């Protein structure tokens, strides 16, 4: 039996999905600002959601990576994910309370845009510490 290792193919899949996300984000931002600025709402909605498809592929690749890992790695991933979800959730709640109290003025669009990147970064940081705990 072979010890579970993330195969280069799976890592390539993650990299391609990340690149596709960056490319579709840049493309849809350009399209919505220039050629499609006055396009019908349905078309603008479709174009603006292009990066979601790439994110869907990256989530699939990450799930495949997790499934290929062993039980300790899965536990580490689960702990990191739980910490990231709670941290970002609490951050959002704190921001909404501060905005509600007129202490801060943040656009909802800005907050919504940063939720997924914040989750990803917090997950990576939490994963680093969770991994160190079992070393």
């Amino acid at each position: 039996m072979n010890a579970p290792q993330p195969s280069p193919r799976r890592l390539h899949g993650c990299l391609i999905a990340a690149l596709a996300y960056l490319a579709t984000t840049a493309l849809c931002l350009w399209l919505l600002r220039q050629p499609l600025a006055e396009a019908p709402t349905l078309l603008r909605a479709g174009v603006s959601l292009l990066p979601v498809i790439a994110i869907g592929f990256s989530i699939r690749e990450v799930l495949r990576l997790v499934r290929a890992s062993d039980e300790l790695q899965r536990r580490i991933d689960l702990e990191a994910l739980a910490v990231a979800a709670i941290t970002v959730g609490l951050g959002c709640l704190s921001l909404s309370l501060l905005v509600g109290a007129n202490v801060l003025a943040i656009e909802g669009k800005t907050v919504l845009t940063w939720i997924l990147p914040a989750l990803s970064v917090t997950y990576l940081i939490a994963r680093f510490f969770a991994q160190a705990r079992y070393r």
Partner: protein
Amino acid sequence: MNNRVRELRGASGWSQAELAERLAVSRQTINAIETGKYDPSLPLAFAIARLFGEAIEAIFTPDP
């Protein structure tokens, strides 16, 4: 939980990487089990017991 995995592995002359290979887990998992930082799942504990030809309760014992 206490365990005799390190002792049994040493007696078999295997490295952590070799044992990990035989159990289809990562070396980090073996290290975490040996140092008591991680208690394996029941299927993995049975696989360890089967590999060393011992009863599961002869390898894993609850903390006193």
